């Protein structure tokens, strides 16, 4: 039993608990906090995988920005208007759909032949990462940024008071 594997299991279990909390929690704000927990634990997994740049990005983007925005939106909607019981009549369907997705993923994971590295993987330096991102993956990168821009404009349009006139 390697210490790394132990840490992996601890982090992984916490991340799963967090993810379960997101869906199981009755309180939307708690859900957001569980989401944060889960995301930060995923960052921990990245560190275990020698992808520390990705881990920091994970904390910065998801921990910092996304969860805050979600939190913000939840905080400003009143609990009175937002029913605390997050029930939905379509719950059975959701269970079926998610189980199907889980089955698909599980079978794929099980059936794939994973190459097991015997040696410790090389750390990808952020210089290499940056260079690859801006040369080899430049087009997807730009498309992603256009997507974000569109989302940004859309958010402003929705949020603008009297923007419809």
């Amino acid at each position, binding site marked *: 039993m390697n210490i790394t594997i132990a840490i992996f299991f601890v982090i992984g279990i916490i991340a799963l608990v967090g993810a379960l909390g997101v869906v199981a929690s009755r309180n939307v704000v708690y859900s957001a906090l569980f989401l944060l927990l889960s995301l930060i634990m995923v960052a921990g997994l990245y560190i275990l995988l020698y992808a520390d740049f990705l881990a920091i990005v994970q904390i910065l983007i998801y*921990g*910092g920005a996304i969860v805050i925005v979600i939190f*913000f939106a939840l905080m400003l909607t009143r609990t009175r208007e937002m029913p605390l019981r997050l029930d939905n009549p379509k719950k059975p369907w959701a269970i079926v759909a998610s189980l199907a997705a889980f089955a698909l993923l599980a079978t794929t994971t099980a059936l794939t032949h994973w190459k097991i590295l015997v040696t410790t993987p090389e750390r990808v330096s952020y210089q290499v990462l940056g260079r690859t991102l801006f040369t080899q993956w430049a087009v997807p990168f730009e498309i992603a940024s256009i997507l974000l821009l569109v989302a940004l404009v859309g958010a402003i349009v929705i949020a603008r008071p009297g923007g419809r006139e």
Partner: protein
Amino acid sequence: MTGELLLSALGVVGMLLFLTVTTFALVWIERKFLGHIQMRLGPMRTGYHGIMQPVADALKLLFKEDFIPGSSDRLIFWLAPLAVFVPAFLIWVSIPFTKELVIRNLDMGIFYIVAVSVVSIIGLVMAGWGSANKYALLGGARAAAQLISYELPLIMVILSVVMLSQSLDLKTIVEKQAVIPYVLLQPLGFLIFLFASLAEVGRTPFDIPQAESEVVGGPFVEYSGIRWSIFFLAEYVNTFAVGVLGALLFLGGWNWPLLPPIIWILVKSYFLVLVIFWMRATFPRLRIDQLMSLAWKVLLPLAFLNILIVGAHQFYRWPAWSLSLISLVVVLAVGYRLRWRRIAGTSRLGLSLATERRLANDRTP
């Protein structure tokens, strides 16, 4: 492996002690400094010139009743101070004080610091929401909006430093400034950094989340005793972090001659912190919308401009003085523009005075 781990643990303990002492020192310095600026003495009762005042305050806070409002969300109320406190301390893991004096130097040190410090916003928002108080809620909302907005110019200006030094490693960044500190190369960048980081730690003129006169302490309004002191500790630790980061990124860190490096870094950091206190003593507070427009319409474009300037400088290999010159010109232009826009029309009163006087005297019987 274990030896290294032990050393790290020792470093962490040492850092915690150091930061606690620093907080006490900063509290005392701030109170004395503000006192003397306002022509009073500040604390004088405990010890020589009140030097033990922070200790007395801390003891008082420790023994205060730990009050949790009945309608608050207990879990979140309880977690919020930790969520602010932990990131505030985590960043110190990778801040080097000298070449050797660092717990764990990361080759992406500055990026790590920026990323971790963002998490503390969540704590403020949690405090605001969990207290079930409208002032706290307003304060929390303000904190979130402000901190997210100022994250961008801050990152952008740090990016320009990174471009100059070609490294994310704080040690390398400092070593590159052995001859010329970056504040001389990009005064514009330094100013943006100063303002953005002031907003990040929520000090005057950007203390909008806490705004005593408006939202009476913002997210912390329901906190008391030990919980409140954790927020307080985090705030001062963050303020000091701004000082140290400013010293590392712009003032050449620990390398200046004569004195040992550790003295230099402390002198520079405390100098920056004093400047922050000085601003607190002088400036009023901005309004939330003005704060936002400052972030998005002034600081962010300027930060981008700064990146462009630095990029051009790097690309065309311009001499160093040209970079400082361009930067300085931009600073002056912005300063002039700010003044011109605000002052225009303020002399009206002086103009009207003469006419009013004549009119007024006409009416005298």
